């Protein structure tokens, strides 16, 4: 039997073959991801003093305000999106009615829209020739616009977050154990208590995971801000301006590393807290 006779040899040959199969991805990853990332890290420390760029990023007003604005925007987008998705997600998971799958499709098809397109859609809603401008003309004779302010970014980010979060919430809500609610009800729990202690607790892993993704995506989103050409400098826009107009590559690199660390950390924490649900394979 070749298994017993040359088992070790075969296993050695096998692991060589496995390595060979993995090799292309290893090379691509090393050459086009790890190496560039290392260069980015090295360049971010270039300058007068070691770490001066990071110090500047965290102390100088224009960088700090960009960072704080982006954080606040992303947190509020995440909270609002989660709230909307919990209401719609629970409703869609628990009720059957004609046209439901169409409704779910309509709510989630913008999943694949890139940020620039969403920026344009916000202009359609709140730009100078947009829907709200028409509405304003009818009501008080002035063009209501919100697309070019932070409200425009907010609307755009909520728009692109809803499909992702909603899909996760629907999937989680379908798996909730309805008997737990029945039990709570029979013990006299109020509707609010049931919602808070049973439903939200059950949805928590899904909310954590999708909320973290929503937050990270908002932090790194570039296309929407770019299309809206706002004067609000979200962090990716600041990085872009530093790199192209300022030609301050070291600063752009430092800000990129900061941004990457924040998004990675949030996703990592969510994965730890929500358990297996946010593991890379699930």
């Amino acid at each position, binding site marked *: 039997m070749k298994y017993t006779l040359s088992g070790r040899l075969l296993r050695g040959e096998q692991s060589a073959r*496995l*390595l060979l199969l*993995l090799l*292309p*991805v290893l090379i*691509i*990853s090393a050459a*086009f*991801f790890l*190496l*560039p*990332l290392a260069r*980015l890290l090295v*360049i971010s420390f270039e300058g007068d003093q070691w770490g001066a760029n990071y110090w500047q990023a965290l102390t100088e007003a224009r960088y700090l305000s960009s960072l704080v604005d982006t954080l606040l925007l992303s947190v509020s987008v995440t909270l609002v999106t989660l709230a*909307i998705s919990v*209401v*719609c997600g629970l*409703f869609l998971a628990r*009720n*059957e009615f004609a046209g439901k799958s169409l*409704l779910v*499709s309509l*709510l989630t098809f*913008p*999943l*694949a*829209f*890139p940020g*620039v*397109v969403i920026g*344009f*859609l916000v*202009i*359609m*809603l709140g730009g100078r*020739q947009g829907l709200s401008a028409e509405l304003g003309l009818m009501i008080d004779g002035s063009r209501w616009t919100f697309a070019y302010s932070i409200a425009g970014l907010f609307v755009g980010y909520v*728009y692109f977050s*809803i*499909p992702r979060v909603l899909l*996760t919430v629907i*999937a989680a809500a379908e798996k909730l154990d309805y008997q737990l609610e029945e039990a709570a009800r029979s013990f006299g729990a109020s509707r609010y208590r049931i919602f808070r202690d049973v439903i939200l607790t059950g949805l928590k892993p899904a909310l954590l995971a*999708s909320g973290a*993704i929503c937050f*990270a*995506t908002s932090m*790194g*989103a*570039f296309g929407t801000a770019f*299309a809206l050409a706002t004067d609000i400098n979200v962090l990716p826009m600041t*990085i872009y301006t530093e*790199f192209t107009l300022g030609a301050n*590559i070291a600063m752009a*690199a430092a800000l990129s590393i900061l*941004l*990457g660390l924040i998004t*990675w950390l949030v996703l*990592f924490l969510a994965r730890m807290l929500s358990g297996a649900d946010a593991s*890379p*394979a*699930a």
Partner: protein
Amino acid sequence: MKRTPSYYLQLGFTLLICAFMLVPVLMSVTAGVTENYFKGISSGLTLRWVQEVLSIYSDTLWLTLKLALATLAVNLLVGVPAAYVLARSKSSWARLFEEILVLPVAIPGLAIALALIIAYGGVQDLRTSWLFILIGHVIYTLPFMVRAVVAVLHSIDFRQLEEGASSLGAGFLRRFFDVIVPNCRGGIVSGALMTLTLSVGEFNLTWMLHTPLTKTLPVGLADAYASMRLEISSAYTLIFLVMLLPLLLATQWNGHRRKAQARPAVQTPAPVAKGVT
């Protein structure tokens, strides 16, 4: 089930959100085929703007298609075998590598693009080639392909299938192509659709990596939004949506199909992770 006021309240809210998602798209589509958006639809319907976009930006369409197919080809060629190895191996090196491989999902595209430019921007031949964008797209989409396939492999007992095939005398290649690949077809299809959708809509990386001669559709869109009249921007967006539509329909169909035949342990890898922004 009885329909309480709360039911109608929730239904109303859900419909409102649906309108929020749908109305701007419909407005954009209408604007793209309207003679003059200022005057409204009464000025007449026309395909003039669509034709104009096709004459100005047709090269962006072809490049986007070429990039998406090339990204898919690379992901299939290197991603599927890698997923197989990662699913099979129990070593901690494999786990570490898996973490590194999916890291680009957690890092904003802008940062990855900046890193690529710093490392390879000096190589003129590469910098000005569409291959530079291809590299970015592969780095960004490969994790989705690998994850989708790994998830399916974890849900089936592929070792036993392989052993069975092996005891019947099937060599490695035979086992890989006749046993492994057919059994994780669902994952490969999900990963492929994800790859195509992400690549077609990718902007964050592509905007940094493109040159005036290598503009993709989303890059052209940003261009049009900044400098063209609303009707042209809308017509261009319409063309993009038309390109995306078959992918969206296929994704929905694939989702339903997999849900219908899912074994208890199979969990569809969330196609949500990081999206296309």
